[in-house]
């Protein structure tokens, strides 16, 4: 079944607090620091964006629901650093100690330098790739999202098919070319690019009590998430 991060449609979360237009970008200094440490550590190149999402989604459900946004980032970062061997558990246990020196780390040559930040952020990480084959679907075609909404390569693994769309029928409204498949890439199984489509689902196909029969929800879904309908 779906994992804790898969929130679309869930009941019980109460009203949205829209905040104020002049709210600061970062509500606390440590939020900014958490974002920056995460981006700088990511620049070491030891994991993909898909793997970092997977790390956040794997937090214990109780942690996921009680941690604030950037606490999730920090916890996932610490877990990734150990899992990829960048740091050891001993390093983490001693991480608060602000003294002593360490031998240079084998990855220190990959350290993101201040003068390279603008270039690295501007480069980003495009996810489009050459298509290994012609897309199977075209704009206007009816498709059904596969069910269950699970990773079909790795049990309990990362996927970008939300549970609320599983089994629902919609129509293709955009073809994006081929993009890296997160279900594979998050687990180090290769980029496995596939055609990516925007699929529009009538709200009445997703919810027992849609607000308005005209309303729609669109999702960006990979070809292996879909079957002809």
């Amino acid at each position, binding site marked *: 079944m779906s994992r804790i991060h898969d929130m679309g449609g869930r009941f019980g979360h109460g009203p949205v607090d829209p905040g104020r237009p002049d709210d600061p970008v970062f509500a606390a200094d440590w939020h900014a620091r958490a974002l920056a440490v995460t981006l700088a550590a990511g620049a070491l190149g030891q994991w993909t964006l898909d793997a970092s999402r997977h790390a956040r989604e794997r937090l214990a459900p109780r942690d996921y629901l009680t941690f604030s946004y950037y606490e999730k980032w920090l916890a996932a970062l610490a877990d990734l650093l150990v899992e990829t061997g960048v740091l050891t558990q001993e390093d983490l246990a001693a991480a608060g100690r602000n003294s002593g020196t360490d031998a240079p780390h084998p990855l220190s040559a990959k350290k993101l330098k201040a003068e390279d930040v603008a270039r690295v952020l*501007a480069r980003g990480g495009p996810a489009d790739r050459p298509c290994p084959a012609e897309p199977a679907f075209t704009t206007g075609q009816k498709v059904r999202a596969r069910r269950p909404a699970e990773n079909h390569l790795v049990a309990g693994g990362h996927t970008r098919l939300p549970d609320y769309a599983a089994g629902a029928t919609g129509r293709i409204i955009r073809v994006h070319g081929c993009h890296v498949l997160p279900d594979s890439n998050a687990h180090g199984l290769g980029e496995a690019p596939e055609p990516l489509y925007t699929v529009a689902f009538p709200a009445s196909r*997703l919810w027992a009590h849609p607000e308005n029969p005209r309303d729609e929800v669109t999702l*960006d879904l990979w070809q292996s998430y879909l079957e002809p309908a």
Partner: protein
Amino acid sequence: MPGRLRRGWTCAHLRITLRPMPHDHHDDHPHALLPPEPALRVKALETILARKGLIDPAALDEIIDTYQNRIGPKNGAMVVARAWTDPEFRARLLENATAVVADLGFFGRQGEHVVAVENTPEVHNMVVCTLCSCYPWPLLGIPPAWYKSDAYRSRAVREPRKVLAEFGVTLPPETAVRVWDSTAEVRYLVIPMRPDGTEGLDVEQLAALVTRDSMVGTGLPKAPA
């Protein structure tokens, strides 16, 4: 070397017994080894990574300055104002937003693939990321807290009109709501409808009316003064 072996055993033993923290006693992820208080947790991570030469604190300052002061909704507002005033620009934007906004200098992390969607009297567009917090950083900056909240992520797809009402927006029933759930690396920019009474305004004056929320679809542009 019995002494070394013994010391090794002791360290391993200590690691296990020290591991549970009040905050995380129920899981055995490595993050539970860090201080539970988040400001101390980030400080600890920054300290150990800097000590090993893996991060440069000056680079962190640069990243923060970028997203705190340089990249934000003003970028997206300029795109919207151009689309309102230049039909040829608007047509190209709706056809291939990635290339058009890149020409304006808006590209990079979390904006590698951009699609612009236009509000009309028939369709109101609204953007969410139910699975995490995907958002067009080069155009709108870092997402606000509400965009990342459990309430917005869970409800925007199921009851967008009730969510819009919480933002003070009420749509007529004849207007369809189309909610874009950002499940891949495509980032969506909503082009809101140009407000009435803005015929004489130039691009800069128009851009000042374009709010962040109006480009996510949870708000409308400001009315002219």
